[in-house]
């Protein structure tokens, strides 16, 4: 009986999170389908969904695994380009969006996950906070590679080149030439498959996968590493394996968010996936509460929508960034002040696994 109660407590918390997302989805669906929504509102739907998926997936690395990643936009970039490339290649053969788009998500996600594995294998084996530095550098490298990548096809097949010089040397069959990825101009002509329906479906999938992972044998192992690596080792937890599982799943969903993002725009350029974007996602995670998936959802929605809506409110628009900054500070205070936090906890019904404590791993083990 007591066992049932604990299970119910976590699942209850998770169902509140699903319920909140479902309620927001129903509200948006009704609002949009009854034609009450403004152009701005409709245009914000997919970017909000993208940011929610990014925030929840980054929280797996930051809040559950306890590692700092500053390159989430890099994985998003990989997913965006891989997904778009796939969609452009198969646009004519796979005409059904119900088949092509899910495949694009899987391909975008797996590409990002694969790159996550390549980054993670060397870095996550080290002790210490190297991940932040490496992911930061990785994000810049990916951005620069994609910024200089040219892929075009003609009757003879696909042609790849890095750098415009190499690209210009390729001899194309002019009649059948089609540029797919055009260096700094990015990728143009991705089918605009994204909409809020796909967005919310993916938010649900992301939440279900990550919350189920957290509340499983593997999830407990991941959190034990965060709380005390030495103790985790002493009870036989494979540190590298579990760090990689968390990091790769996190990268997978960043890739999925990238696919959703790139299929919402007529053209995607690599410079969009920069350091600032990674930091923005980290801000969602920190302000929503490290380790709290529900907090990440709420913070990503509010902080994506707010600056845009403030732009729209007549004489307030001059103070847009000021209000945004005040809100950021207010959220930070609420999150870091125990008294305020308790007060708002009841109101917002947020749950948190608790603040991430400063790591105090001494050199010696006693």
């Amino acid at each position, binding site marked *: 009986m007591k066992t049932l109660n*604990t299970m119910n407590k976590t699942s209850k918390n998770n169902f509140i999170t699903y319920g909140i997302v479902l309620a927001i989805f129903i509200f948006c669906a009704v609002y949009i389908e009854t034609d009450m929504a403004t152009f701005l509102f409709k245009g914000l739907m997919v970017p909000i969904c993208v940011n929610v998926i990014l925030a929840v997936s980054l929280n797996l690395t930051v809040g559950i695994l306890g590692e700092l990643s500053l390159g989430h936009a890099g994985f998003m970039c990989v997913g965006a380009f891989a997904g778009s490339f796939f969609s452009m290649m198969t646009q004519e053969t796979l005409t059904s969006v119900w088949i092509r788009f899910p495949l694009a998500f899987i391909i975008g996600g797996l590409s990002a996950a694969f790159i996550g594995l390549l980054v993670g294998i060397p870095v996550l084996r080290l002790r210490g906070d190297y991940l932040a530095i490496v992911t930061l550098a990785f994000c810049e490298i990916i951005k620069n590679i994609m910024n200089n990548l040219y892929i075009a096809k003609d009757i003879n097949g696909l042609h790849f080149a890095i750098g415009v010089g190499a690209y210009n040397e390729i001899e194309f069959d002019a009649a059948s030439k089609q540029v797919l990825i055009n260096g700094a101009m990015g990728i143009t002509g991705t089918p605009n498959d994204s909409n809020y329906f796909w967005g919310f479906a993916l938010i649900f999938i992301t939440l279900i996968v990550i919350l*189920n992972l957290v*509340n499983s*044998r593997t999830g407990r192992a991941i959190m034990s590493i*965060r*709380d*005390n690596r030495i103790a985790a*080792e*002493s009870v*036989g937890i494979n540190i590298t394996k579990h760090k990689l599982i968390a990091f790769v799943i996190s990268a997978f969903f960043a890739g999925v968010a990238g696919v959703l993002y790139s299929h919402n725009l007529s053209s995607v350029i690599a410079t969009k996936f920069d350091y600032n974007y990674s930091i923005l996602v980290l801000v969602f995670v920190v302000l929503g509460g490290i380790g709290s998936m529900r907090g990440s959802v709420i913070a990503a929605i509010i902080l994506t929508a707010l600056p845009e809506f403030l732009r729209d409110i007549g004489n307030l628009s001059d103070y847009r960034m000021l209000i945004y900054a005040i809100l950021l500070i207010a959220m930070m205070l609420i999150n870091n002040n125990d008294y305020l936090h308790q007060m708002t906890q009841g109101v917002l019904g947020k749950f948190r696994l608790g603040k991430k404590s400063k790591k105090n791993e001494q050199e010696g083990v006693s």
Partner: protein
Amino acid sequence: MSVMLETKNLGISFGGLKAVDGLSLSIEKGQLYGLIGPNGAGKTTAFNLLTGVYKPTMGNFFLDGEKLTGMSTIEINKKGVARTFQNIRLFKQMSVLDNVKVGLHNNFEYTAAEGIFRLPRHAKVEKQMNEKAIELLDVFGLAGEKDRLSSNLPYGKQRKLEIARALATSPKLLLLDEPAAGMNPQETQELMDTIRFVRDHFDMTILLIEHDMKLVAGICEEVTVLNFGTVLAQGETSSVLQNPEVVKAYLGD
């Protein structure tokens, strides 16, 4: 009676400092064995050697006849050595129950995918894990606090939870580093009963470090005394504790 743990001339030096120097001891299966000595004698370092945290620079150690020297902490735990820490190391942001369930990790099996997609084995194995974890918590009178955050437990209970977590890995040998530190005399008395119970109930071999001589004299059948990394005395507890050399080392001159 067979030997559970045997160390042969085990040692490590940090730079010039020989923290443990030529430690040889032999612990019988089912024995309660004490490792004592003044501060800085190398007791915790010996535990770190036996759990693979440090690799010995000399000597070997064997568990149940198998040589474990050079293995990683994880491998050594899987071979059957579990420990607690002098400075408590719980999974602070996890519940009491989950702390023990992390200890059970390698004794139960379902994959990450089975957990993510909530396949049948997930529910079945989770139920078994919960039952096993509560059974262990019950031994230490902690079952009623299973949902509390482990860092919110009082000090004495945190020490007990660490023992429960170590036992969850179903070890052959349990290493306790100052289990009574910070406990009042009554708690210490209870702890002595619990340690005896663990030994009898789980058929456990226990090696413990302790400064509380009442506890050592009360439950340890044999002891080894370390001083400046070397063995000062070894043997049956009451006679070792009366050894003038040992008394002198403890008085600190």
